């Protein structure tokens, strides 16, 4: 119950995402040539939940650090696992819906909207966990932004193969690659159930690992922030 409440609260803030999504739909429909849509839409779906997922969690964290509100949560029955889970899982909801809205607005409202949401959500979870971990390393938000460059670069490498610049297999073990596989097949409207299930399975595995690492980070670093606040 506590987890549900906290997830709801974390999911509440970023209404601005939907404004960005509507703007993106307008850009896609008026400025992007139709022949580029099968490449441009997956690239957008790939980039938005990842980058915004990192920033969203970090924004929560830096705000809470400034307010010291995390110290107030530390003297409630809310456990560290619930705190981290709510932050990561809750913050991933808005980017998921907002990005799915872009796909629906550009490619149409059909089954693909439902199919695109699980990978979008899992990407936002992975990137949110990375954002949480990075936020414990950098004391200031500006330094945090610089600190996101290496993970975002690694995250973005599969785009090279997606655009045909390097071999696809080189980036198979980067979590974001699995999402790109799904977004690509959905944009070209060539659904392959096995490829979808395999990619989703890998993404789920990465999301669980990232969540676990974020909980371990909480125990090691955020707890220390609370102790010495």
């Amino acid at each position, binding site marked *: 119950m506590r987890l549900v*409440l906290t997830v709801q609260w974390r999911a509440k*803030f970023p209404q601005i995402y939907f404004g960005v999504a509507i703007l993106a739909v307008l850009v896609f429909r008026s400025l992007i040539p139709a022949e580029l849509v099968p490449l441009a839409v997956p690239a957008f779906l790939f980039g938005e939940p990842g980058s915004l997922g990192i920033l969203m969690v970090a924004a929560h964290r830096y705000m809470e650090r400034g*307010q010291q509100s995390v*110290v107030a949560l530390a*003297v409630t*029955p809310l456990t560290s696992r619930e705190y981290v889970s709510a932050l990561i899982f809750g913050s991933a909801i808005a980017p998921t819906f907002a990005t799915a809205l872009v796909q629906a607005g550009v490619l149409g409202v059909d089954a693909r909207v439902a199919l695109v949401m699980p990978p979008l959500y899992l990407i936002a979870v992975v990137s949110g966990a990375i954002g949480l971990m990075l936020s414990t390393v950098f004391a200031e938000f500006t330094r945090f932004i610089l600190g996101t460059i290496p993970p975002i670069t690694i995250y973005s490498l599969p785009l090279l193969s997606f655009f045909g610049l390097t071999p696809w297999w080189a980036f198979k073990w980067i979590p974001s690659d699995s999402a790109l596989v799904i977004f690509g097949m959905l944009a070209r409207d060539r659904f392959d159930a096995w490829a979808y299930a395999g990619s989703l399975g890998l993404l789920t595995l990465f999301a669980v690992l990232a969540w676990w690492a974020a909980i371990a980070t909480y125990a090691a670093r955020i707890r220390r922030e609370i102790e010495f606040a």
Partner: protein
Amino acid sequence: MIVSARNLRFRYPRSAGDVLHGLDFDIAEGEIFGFLGPNGSGKSTTQKILTGILPAYRGAVQVFGHDVGSQRADYYNRIGVSFEFPNLFEKLTAEENLAFYRGFFDVPTDEPGALLRSLDLPVGDRRPVAAFSKGMKTRLVLARSLINRPKLWFLDEPTTGQDPHHAVAIRDLIRAQADSGVTVFLTTHDMTVADKLCDRVALIDEGRLPVVDAPRALKLQFKEPVVRVEHRAPDGSLERKDFRLDDAISKHAFLEMVRTTDVQTIHTQEPSLEDVFLRLTGKALV
């Protein structure tokens, strides 16, 4: 005893030495126990240990009969913690802050509106907490710490930033909670608050407790047996003279002055808790 600390010691990582040097104290049920000391004396560190935030202490600390280090989530259902820093969710309204917070507890909680009213905070105010004054934020933190109807209430400088009217209201609230059986652990450097509220105070200095006793007992213990007399001099000016009551000659002089001059006031000179602290440690409280 609700709280019992024996030989409590604590050292922050990378610090040269202990910040708490073997504290011993007990707190009985329904007692208002004051931790009185200057900034940096170890008050907040002690509170953090008792609230389970700092687990790496040495010595024995029991709360509700259990080691504080082994306390789990249920412990937080039974305590309330009001921080000196108003660590609220600033983008939320006062009611949203309380409504959000109460959802974490597994015990019956109070209605946010009633709590807000009890601390003279507006009900139905749509402003985010960020727009509140410091005094309002402190009162909201107090309200939040009561939402789960705690049995043990930790208060850190509860009257900071309050005008005299609200400071009195907060003192009345604390007294009312104690009268209803709530045990209060109050850390402060405000001797007036400690003097007016606390059943007993522990004076803490550089991580040591030189004395733990009732405020009145401490003041009597350190009282100077002196009477101060203000009287009108023949030229009409107001003069002041102190007489020791433990000295026969001085006592005689005092009676002579009362008999022969136009006495305006006579007062015994009782020390304040600040004087007691100064006497014991050689330092001022603030």
